[in-house]
């Protein structure tokens, strides 16, 4: 033995140095793998919610909103979920780099793999309905998420001058084929829906919140071309909106609607 090796062995023995137990390294390695898998799953779930939001019907508004395509597209982006995908991809990348084989692959391949993995798993999650569940869970458990969702919805859909309107149905005139909507600010709108195919018959009820695509024809008048269910705002619907009770007080007739219309016009001119 050389003097140097004798010194090292002597130091090991004198200082009672011993190898760190194997379980310590295994635990550390497994921890990185578990965090990697968890971050890929969470990233995929975020991606699936993006697909869910994109498929909930608002993306095709881009065709409708001529002239403000970029600003409308920017308005529609689900920033929270995009950020969430990016963060989980970054966490996945960091964890991958800390695994024993992490250094063998170039960064671009790891990022690409993580991205494709998120798309693949995210599509599966979306297909089995998990995206809707996650979105719903976030809406019910995180007030700020719920609030921001509604703010974004209002910002996008409350643009009557661009032909977008969202509001609650407060009256239906089946004869004249007109609706009275109340928007979030409390303003009432008379919506002509004779040229409209309803997405769903269930929607044509008082108390339902609907999204209308069409044309503003006056201060409080709107001509509908399309009426959609407001996917993300049905929670706001007035559960106590009692059709029967309404019927008792005043019949849902053409005459009543016309009278109401006159009131509305009066209100509008006063404003």
């Amino acid at each position, binding site marked *: *033995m050389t003097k140097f090796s004798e010194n090292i062995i002597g130091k090991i023995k004198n200082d009672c*140095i011993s190898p*760190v137990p*194997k379980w310590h390294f295994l635990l550390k390695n497994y921890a990185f793998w578990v965090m990697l898998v968890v971050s890929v799953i969470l990233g995929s779930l975020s991606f699936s919610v993006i697909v869910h939001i994109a498929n909930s019907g608002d993306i095709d508004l881009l065709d409708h909103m001529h002239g403000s395509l970029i600003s409308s597209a920017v308005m529609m982006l689900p920033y929270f979920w995009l950020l969430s995908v990016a963060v989980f991809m970054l966490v996945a990348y960091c964890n991958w780099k800390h695994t*024993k084989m992490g250094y*063998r692959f170039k960064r671009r391949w790891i990022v690409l793999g993580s991205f494709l993995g998120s798309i693949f798993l995210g599509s599966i999650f979306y297909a089995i309905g998990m995206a809707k569940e996650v979105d719903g869970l976030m809406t019910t458990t995180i007030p700020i998420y719920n609030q921001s969702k509604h703010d974004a919805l209002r910002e996008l859909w409350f643009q009557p001058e661009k032909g977008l309107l969202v509001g609650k149905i407060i009256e239906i005139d089946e004869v004249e084929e007109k609706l009275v909507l109340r928007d979030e600010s409390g303003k009432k709108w008379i919506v002509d829906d004779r040229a409209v195919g309803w997405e769903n018959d269930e929607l044509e009820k008082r108390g339902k919140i609907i999204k209308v695509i069409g044309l503003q024809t006056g201060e409080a008048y709107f001509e509908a071309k399309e009426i959609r269910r407001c996917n993300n705002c049905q929670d706001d619907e007035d559960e106590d909106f009692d059709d029967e009770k309404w019927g008792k007080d005043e019949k849902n007739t053409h005459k009543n609607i016309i009278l109401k219309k006159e009131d509305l016009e009066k209100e509008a001119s006063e404003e």
Partner: protein
Amino acid sequence: MEKEYLQELNNVAELSDEGLVKMTLENPDAYGFLIERYEEKLHRYILRISGGSREDVEDTLQDVFISAYKNLNDFDQDLKFSSWIYRIAHNKVISHFRKITARPKTVTYEGDNQLLNILASSEDMTKELERKHTGEEVRLILDELDERYREVLVLKFLEEKDYKEISDILEKPMGTVATLINRAKKQFKEKISKQDMKQNILKKV
């Protein structure tokens, strides 16, 4: 009795590195054989990449062996033991020397003209070039290279490691190692050419 002991020692000495790792985990004395195998190589390697004083290099080398011993259970059987312990040395040099000095001092080691010869023959550089430059000049040129370039040149041409081993030591993808080596060779040759130009000018003056 003594004959049997010597025979046993001989058997241990003939074990592979990986076999010695297993044996060390049962008996720390077996670690002495591993130390003997790598003492010189690592000493030279640390000196080459750090350019530290002899004392600093020895301290670092001791740290390397103690650290390797503590982490023996983490030794990955997919790697060569030599790659694993070179990696520890590389990391120790980074944490030890680069804290002290932003730029290593002049590297003083033998066999630098070996690097020049290899680089010259690998890229058909002229024999004339080999004759022109002394080991000392090569040392100075190496010193001027970026640290990452210097280290890959040392590993590839002086430590004679292949791409896979360098990749395992530096913990970089093999493609990146290949790129680094190419760039390092290019930078090395550029420095050599500049050196030639300077010498020519000096001669004319």
